[in-house]
């Protein structure tokens, strides 16, 4: 297990407990009382830390190197997954995966932004940052799902759309814009789960649908805390990430309060990486509930509902 900076006291106590257990086993000592005391102390410490997470700390959990990614969830609850590749125009963007699959025998089309676990994989996946061909690959998938009447399930997890020369040359803005419009014209249910990072247009480019859920420690914002800090504080922006995350209200709880998402999915104490399997079960259950709700709707009700959902977003005053 890798620990984040603010988890240091937890790490130290967990280490102490496991050392004590090891020592006791070797010496055949009866120390169950001490362990019990320490364990309850640990439980209290965990609650103290995890129940009072700052927004920036949640961003760090969302980026935890052991956090489950799109393909992990697919591995946990999707059967007969057939991965499809390419945008049929330029390339296969590895930062996005898609394909046919079954969730409890229900046929669906899955699209997910994909990060890599080790250095090589991270580079291969371009750190989960899509190029225009990634958005066009996803659109090809949505269109395919539409033609064969398969509901679409999307996992969002990106630090942003890739900012590079090639991405601009091939129309990053156009690719995202087109998806925003076309995802409102797809005649099958679209269920979205933000599983980690939801950075701006890079996330929204595959983020328009009928139901949007967020994992408890995921974040979704118009700009990353780092990007915001760099704009607002020219001097030492790295000292202002906490403040930027706070100002931007980036957490899942914030998005729910602002009426942007339909609900949250609980994570185990400390984050999804502490128990990926139990997290996956909850994600799966939410997807199934949402698909059940949407399946009874006519195409007209579905599209009207989807467009109406976004039509309502925004806060302003009239004078």
């Amino acid at each position, binding site marked *: 297990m890798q620990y984040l900076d603010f988890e240091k006291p937890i790490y130290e106590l967990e280490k102490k407990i496991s050392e004590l257990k090891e020592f006791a086993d070797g010496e055949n000592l009866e120390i169950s009382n001490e362990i019990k005391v320490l364990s309850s102390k640990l439980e209290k410490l965990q609650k103290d830390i995890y129940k009072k997470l700052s927004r920036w700390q949640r961003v760090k959990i969302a980026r935890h190197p052991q956090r489950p990614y799109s393909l992990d969830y697919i591995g946990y609850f999707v059967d007969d997954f057939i991965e499809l590749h390419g945008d049929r125009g330029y390339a296969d963007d590895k930062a996005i995966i898609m394909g046919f699959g079954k969730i409890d025998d229900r046929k669906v089309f899955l699209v997910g932004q994909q990060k890599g676990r080790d250095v090589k994989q991270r580079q291969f996946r371009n750190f989960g940052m899509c190029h225009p061909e990634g958005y066009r690959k996803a659109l090809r998938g949505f269109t395919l799902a539409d033609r064969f009447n398969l509901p679409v399930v999307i996992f969002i997890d990106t630090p942003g759309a890739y900012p590079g*020369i090639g991405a601009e040359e091939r129309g990053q803005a156009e690719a995202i814009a087109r998806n925003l419009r076309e995802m409102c014209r797809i005649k099958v249910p679209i269920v979205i789960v933000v599983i980690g990072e939801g950075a701006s247009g890079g996330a929204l480019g595959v983020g328009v649908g009928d139901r949007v859920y967020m994992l408890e420690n995921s974040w979704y914002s*118009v700009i990353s805390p780092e990007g915001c800090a760099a704009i607002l504080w020219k001097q030492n922006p790295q000292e202002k990430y906490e403040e930027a995350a706070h100002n931007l209200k980036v957490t899942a709880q914030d998005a729910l309060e602002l009426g942007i998402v339909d609900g949250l999915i609980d994570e185990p104490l400390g984050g999804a990486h502490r128990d990926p399997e139990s997290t996956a079960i909850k994600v799966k259950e939410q997807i199934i509930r949402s698909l059940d709700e949407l399946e009874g709707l006519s195409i007209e009700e579905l599209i009207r509902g989807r467009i109406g959902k976004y039509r309502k977003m925004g*806060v302003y005053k009239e004078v």
Partner: protein
Amino acid sequence: MEWFRKSSAPQKGEPKKEIPDGLWTKCKNCGEIIYVKELEKSFWVCNKCDFHFRIASQDYIRLILDDGQLEQFDDNLVSDDPLEFKDSKKYTERIKAARKKSGLNDAVITGTGNIDKKPVSISVMDFTFVGGSMGSVVGEKIARSIERALEKRIPLIIISSSGGARMQEGILSLMQMAKTSALLALLYDEKIPFISVLTNPTTAGVMASYASLGDIIIAEPQALLGFAGQRVIKQTIGQDLPPGFQSSEFFLEHGFIDFISHRKDLKRNISLALDYMAVQPPGQK
């Protein structure tokens, strides 16, 4: 190519309002000293080098609409502060200052008017108001402008000038991209034409939503157009950007706009295009 690069990327510290107050002014691109009255007559374009000065939303209304007549709607919408955002200044104070300085209520004016007697629903963004950024008010006014085109079955024109989504409204700003694009899906299916005009600059969240979704897209010369900011790209790739990168000419070359129009020809070009893209009768999906 140096002249080209210079004008496509506005320099740091450049005043946001490019219209000079005095009798004479210097062209930002070629340095020519120009009589302001002359500049006014030439639609704020330098008659030596064709540099297009940034102009206000009202100037576009005068330029595009018959008799400069706009029936304005929704000017009573103003920003709220849903995030209670505060950096060196409170967001509410920033908005107050912007309203005072620009005389506008937010970064877009919307309404209806005629172009060569053809009625249109039109939105014109204004960079002087917090960098033309799109928050809830801009999103809502654009959305209503699209709905007006749908209801009246008249073409939609949007003239963009924006640095992107308004950071101080957080994810609500981001969702304005989805909101406006969702309504454009309805317009698209109804076969009502939408002409998107890009002026300097049109980037990020606005470029990645309605500005890119026109049936045809027209840009003014040498405008800065793109998705990511140049500083961010430079930092990410660790090298300098090629000359002319993210300009109107670059967008034309890569196939993302239909043509570049000199400001003096803009009205005529829009008007001609509208003649070919007649609104189709309802129910012709």
